[in-house]
């Protein structure tokens, strides 16, 4: 099929849905509110960055192909034809939106420009123009089941290491069960929370241990990464294929609950897309996430903490996918307030929070590092600085990667990590918190109250 035909087909297909996209093609009032609330436009108020201009890349062709006025009056009504040369520019433009959906929160009509961005990326995918870094993540994930391309063996080694670590911290065996059929809970973290910043996973293991439920959960040596970059490249087929691996694994294990880890977009795909749209029919398990799960047990008074293990000022960055898109905002705060001495909000927060600047998969793109550090992450840097926090918790591997780079790039002495990381350091097991070697200084951290 010719390139032209592919693009035309993809854009006329909007007439068949999804409903949001069709509506967005027809009813933007062009009031400019979205631009004033977009993290990218905030740092770079230029025409190409204006959400409406980006969305018009698709809208103009839609008008040309699918509306009478567009066919008759062309540019006068904002309809435009396209040329084959446009797409190189598209590949830049559509990867300059972080898909954070902040524009939709403030648009008087709730027009979500990220939906149009994803459509643009889907067309780029059709044309084989997805940025190579992004395509590689999708490919690796489909090949190995995780975005890091780690083998089951490497995974097992990492788990063993974590178990040893916990033994050192607490002097007892705390298990991380793997491939246990019949376990109630199937924990699906982002692979980063096993391989890169594993404290979130030790935190989960400790919660199960304290609750006396250590034999009721499991991880999978094949499926340990909820991250799914098909969402970001607009490639539905890959997104579903990747998703199916996890749903099938949950079925194979016979789990009753799929417990999603600290990864916003992974949870969103499961909870807001796969489940309600019934990609795989009715599910024999329910879907929740570790933040909600842990928060319930904290509220019920089943977990105790030594907050002095986390004496530094801690703030929480609401990942767009967990906060704005899934409404998981109170739970991480319950965990952080229980386990940290000095928890501070950053403003605005929750559903109004600004994107870290790495959303929509951008955080994996070191090809645009400067852009992410100077532009998309600018507002976030200002917000974090204003809190005075020394530790930023983010329940999302993508956010964490972006924020860690942001702190390095701007020479800020601020640590970035997960939410359960804080819990892992402060939770009491047999009355005692972890005896831990501080990562930065190499000195054992002593509890002040202990």
């Amino acid at each position, binding site marked *: 099929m010719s390139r032209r035909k592919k693009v035309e087909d993809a854009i006329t297909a909007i007439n068949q849905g999804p409903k949001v996209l069709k509506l967005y093609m027809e009813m933007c009032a*062009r009031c*400019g509110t979205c631009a*004033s609330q977009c993290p990218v436009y905030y740092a770079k108020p230029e025409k190409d960055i204006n959400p409406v201009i980006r969305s018009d890349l698709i809208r103009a062709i839609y008008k040309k192909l699918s509306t009478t006025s567009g066919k008759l009056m062309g540019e006068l009504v904002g309809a435009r034809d396209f040329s084959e040369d446009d797409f190189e520019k598209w590949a830049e433009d559509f990867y300059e939106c972080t898909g954070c959906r902040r524009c939709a929160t403030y648009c008087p009509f*709730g027009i979500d420009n990220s939906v149009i961005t994803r459509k643009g990326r889907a067309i780029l995918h059709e044309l084989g123009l997805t940025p190579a870094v992004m395509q590689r993540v999708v490919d690796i994930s489909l090949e190995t089941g995780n975005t890091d391309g780690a083998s089951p063996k490497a995974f097992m080694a990492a788990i063993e290491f974590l178990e040893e670590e916990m033994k050192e911290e607490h002097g007892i065996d705390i298990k991380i069960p793997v491939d246990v059929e019949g376990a109630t809970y199937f924990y699906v973290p982002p692979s980063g929370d096993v391989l890169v910043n594993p404290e979130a996973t030790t935190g989960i293991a400790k919660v199960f241990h304290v609750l006396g439920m250590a034999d009721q959960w499991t991880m999978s040596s094949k499926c340990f990464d909820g991250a799914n970059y098909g969402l970001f490249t607009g490639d539905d087929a890959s997104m579903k294929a990747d998703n199916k691996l996890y749903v099938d694994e949950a079925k194979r294990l016979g789990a009753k609950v799929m417990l999603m880890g600290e990864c916003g977009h992974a949870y969103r795909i499961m909870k807001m*897309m796969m489940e309600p749209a019934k990609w795989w029919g009715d599910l024999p398990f329910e879907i929740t996430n570790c933040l909600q799960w842990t928060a319930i047990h904290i509220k019920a008074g089943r977990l105790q903490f030594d907050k002095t293990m986390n004496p530094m000022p801690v703030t929480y960055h609401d990942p767009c996918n967990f906060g704005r*898109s899934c409404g998981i*905002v109170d739970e991480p705060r319950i965990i952080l307030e229980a386990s940290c001495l000095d928890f501070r909000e950053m403003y605005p927060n929750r*559903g109004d929070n600004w994107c870290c600047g790495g959303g929509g998969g951008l955080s994996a793109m070191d090809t645009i590092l400067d852009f992410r550090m100077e532009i998309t992450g600018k507002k976030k840097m200002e917000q974090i600085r204003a809190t005075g926090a020394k530790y930023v918790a983010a329940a999302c591997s993508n956010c964490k990667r972006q924020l860690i780079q942001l702190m390095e790039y701007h020479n800020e002495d601020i640590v970035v990590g997960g939410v359960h990381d804080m819990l892992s350091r402060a939770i009491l097991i047999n009355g005692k918190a972890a005896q831990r070697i501080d990562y930065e200084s190499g000195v054992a951290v002593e509890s002040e109250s202990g």
Partner: protein
Amino acid sequence: MSTFAFIVGGILPGIAVVIFIVGMVYRLSVWLKIPQPGRMTLFPASEGTTKAVVAEALFFPSLFRGDRVLWTFAWVFHATLALVALGHIRVITGFVDRVLMAMGMSAEGIATMSGTVGGIAGVILFATGTLLLIRRLTMQRVREISGLPDFFALLLLIAIIFTGDMMRFGAHFELEQTRIWARSLVTFSPQIPQHGMFLTHALLALLLIMYIPFSKILHFGGIFFTQSLIKRR
């Protein structure tokens, strides 16, 4: 009767109403039909989706949080427009008068109120419409996304408002004529007021009515769809 008056006052109203209704029904039926797999909810989302959507349509709370200045212009503009639309129903049907009289108002009272409220509303509309236009022309983030259709829609509205105001403040026009005209249209024996300003006002307004289903102004119907998709709990 001039041909112009006959076209504007006799033929166009029917055409405009048909185009408007067919156009909007078509839009709505398509919007209703198209599937939406997956959920697009934006949080915080309240329990009452309908309530939240109606609130958005009436008070623009999202815009209020997003751009306070625009909210002021836009809300005053739209609210006044709604009021003026009610006033026009009164002018052409007499239905509103009967309701007001039932509530105990005298005919003179109604006429005075209509004169005062209508007059003020006309001025407010012209002022806020002009402010919206100035905003579109001067503010970078709005100017760079403004095209011909955006200016056309706004200028058309301002022209309608201006000619309407002129009938009240300039070229005086007897309101009773519009009722006779409206009634005559329903019985297909048009009695058209021979009044230049009236005919211009009517022509522009009818153009607008026909234009709505094909323009961004259909956001007044679309808002219920887009907002319920993101407010759905």
